């Protein structure tokens, strides 16, 4: 046996013998109960005896290689892959566009609303159903969020004619929360003319005017102006 191996065995012996002494004192002071004391003392004694025998016989301290259990190993690998995949899928589905000033993780409750709104905005033209779900999540956090009320109302009003009244109700709710926000006026105008049956052209005209009066986004101004022109144009028949 080389001196390094002997030194390791001697250190192991010192550790085990000291552990027995420590254990006796821990037991004496009530830190270890009787059952554990017996079990651990037997274990230390057996290990110390084995190390002492190894020193006397000049053997290495390296324990024999244990028989591998392939099933256990496979179970660990499969478990690890499953947990990693699940966590990966969850983190991917829980992430969204980062807004200016937003932290890469976590955040205050206000940030969560901003994050959900950003996710919903991204989905607006791509997957309206998912966008509706995100807007609803915003409303769960902030029932009076005017953007979520407006866009959820606009999306569901277009989705299905049976849902149009619910959409109109949400747009009215948004206008009540913030009458100066142009978007619900614009959407209510279009919805009243195109999706409500029968069309309510009076509301459409007044809301379109309200939309323009409240400084809508620039890309919406031309669209609403054309919409008003189309409402005012003489209807041609036959």
């Amino acid at each position, binding site marked *: 046996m080389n001196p*390094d*191996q002997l*030194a*390791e065995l001697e*250190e*192991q012996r*010192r*550790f085990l*013998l*000291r*552990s*027995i*002494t*420590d254990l006796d*004192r*821990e037991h004496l*002071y*009530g*830190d*270890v*109960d009787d*059952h*554990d004391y017996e*079990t*651990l003392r037997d*274990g230390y*004694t057996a*290990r*110390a*005896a*084995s190390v*002492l025998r190894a020193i006397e016989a000049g053997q290495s*301290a*390296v*324990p024999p290689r*244990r028989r591998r259990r392939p099933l256990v190993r496979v179970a660990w690998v499969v478990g690890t892959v499953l*947990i*990693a995949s699940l*966590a*990966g899928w*969850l*983190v*991917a589905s*829980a*992430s*969204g*566009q*980062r807004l200016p000033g*937003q*932290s*890469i*993780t*976590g*955040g*205050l*409750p206000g*940030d*969560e609303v901003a*994050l*959900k709104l950003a996710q919903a905005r991204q989905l607006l033209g791509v997957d309206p159903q998912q966008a509706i779900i995100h807007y609803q999540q915003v409303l769960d956090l902030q029932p009076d969020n005017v953007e979520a009320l407006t866009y959820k109302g606009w999306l569901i009003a277009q989705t299905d004619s049976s849902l149009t009244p619910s959409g109109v109700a949400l747009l009215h709710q948004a206008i009540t929360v913030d009458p100066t926000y142009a978007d619900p006026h614009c959407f209510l105008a279009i919805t009243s003319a195109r999706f409500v049956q029968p069309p309510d052209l009076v509301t459409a005209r007044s809301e379109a005017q309200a939309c323009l009066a409240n400084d809508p986004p620039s890309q919406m101004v031309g669209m609403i102006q054309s919409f008003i022109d189309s409402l005012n144009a003489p209807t041609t028949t036959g």
Partner: protein
Amino acid sequence: MLATASLNGIVGHAALIIGLAASVFGALGLVIANVTGDGRLLRTISNYAWMALGGAVVAVAVMERALITRDFSLAYIQQVGSRDTPALFNVTALWSALEGSILLWLLILAIYTAVIMKRNRQRLDDPLVAWALVVMFTVTAFFFFLSFGPIDAFKNGPVPDFTRCCLGPNPLLQNHILVLFHPPILYLGYVGFTVPFAFAIAALITGRVGEGWLVATRRWALYAWGFLTVGILLGGWWSYEVLGWGGVWGWDPVENASFLPWLTGTAYLHSVLVQERRGMLRVWNISLLVATFSLTILGTFITRSGVLASVHAFSNGTIGPYLLGFFGVIVAVSLGLIAWRGDRLRSPGAIDSPISREGAFLANNVIFTVFAFIVLLGTVFPLIVEALQNRQIAVGPPFFDRLSMPIGITLLFLMAIAPVLPWRKASTELLRDRLFWPAWCGAGALAISVFVGADGLAPLLAFMLGGFAGGAATRQLLLALRRQGWRGLVGRANGGMVVHLGVIIVAVALAASNSYTRVAEFTLQQGKPVSYQGHTFELVKLQQFADARSTGVKALIRVDGGKSYAPAITTFTNFGTKIPTPSVRNGLLNDLYLTLEPSVRFDGTEAPVKIYVKPLIVWLWIGGMLMAAGTVLAGFPGRRRRVPTDPVSAPIELESAGV
């Protein structure tokens, strides 16, 4: 044009270069002395530890002097110093930005290295101690190098233009006394894990990978964990008292960076017992220590390299590439050493039964590791996506909340079961006997929760398991107290049970405050009280205030017809930012947390306020104190062991050990 070099800058640079040289010579000298067996060289090594400590002390003292005397010739003082900052926050400005934080890290590391040197000065010829100190010196040298080179903590700034420079520390860091305690205590924990890591690496290098090195590091790991725990809780307290959002934990990357080493450190503190008692999990324990130390470096990289602003910005930053490189070296060297010593790391024993103390510790380790993986994944995922796809994304709190809830519940269950499980194997009768009273405590906790109106599956489960786990910990403590009187509170197992009680209290308080917080916004008007959640709130008056650094307004609000509380909005004139300062009425059952909204008019008569009613928040801090006390109690056996008989280091006779 640069400002004229000041005495502070010159002395600071000199201190850092002396410290760097001492650390490098210390590491090299130890290696040479051990390889050649040069005893004379070995006897000089301790001087290098003292020189490195001296360098770090002088560097920090000089930086503090520069802050206090407003030496605006230094770039760092221009960055965080101000003529208007109050004295206390001028001192704490040291750790309010990168350069000072690294100096603080360096000081603590140099102190730890000197203490290890002093305690082991007679054992420097022992290769295990020598290599551990080589690792300590190397890490110290790296941080001296960072401070002196890439960061250049004492570099001269441009000639100050006082219309734009010298604004003082971030307003959030000059608003509460906790900034004096939170960062240093957190760093004591972070840096403390360097010691067990150094001994683990030394054990791998020397091949003495048995249980001997654990004895040298047992208490270091415990106290580093204790400091980290207290530091994290103080951070939560600071967040609650200063940020005005009513919460203690938001899963932001800085919080996650401190939580990751805590998770792996906690796993280590449990699994190391299995190695000591049964000689198992050797590779696992070394891996956990490597993970804990490397996560402290990775956390520093994440929070200090500029990578949070943009993945692509970090390479332009001052220390990002160095920290990432150092992290890579640590991981590569550690894994290489573990692979090299693979045969010797084989454990002699095996778990006899999963229903045993060691089985429970193993389950605990698996769960803590999964938890750490989830937090790490959530934290680095946006960085990976940005690096690969150039998309800036964020991972919101729901990801962390959704996964941490079942993990927390499982850990509570394990905390109930593990303390009553015996080593090796448990019989049904023994379990039935030992779990009888804890189970009744769990049932009682559930009944009381339902009786007082608690609802929701997750919080009720948390309260029930909290009662169950609390019963198990209390049972263990009562048995020990009955046997030994007050001495029954000390020792690793019993101190550990006190820590468990603290953790349970924190878990229950978190479950209650997350589930049952109520919040509402009101515009309060003088003379018109508002009722909410059984309390009345009345605006007494709005009061403006001003000092050299800020102006603001506070709303005096009388609560329940008694004492007035004063949430405020402060505008720091140097920064132009409005900082809300909440006002809190603490109570054992709930806190009333008042914030003044930024829309308040300074000359108005109305106060837009947000009122939070948050249950059991005070118990977070009480639980934290109990955890700290338990950590101290768990570290006691060594001192106690010396009192009645011989010192720990005394040789042990075979006969006395009964072999």
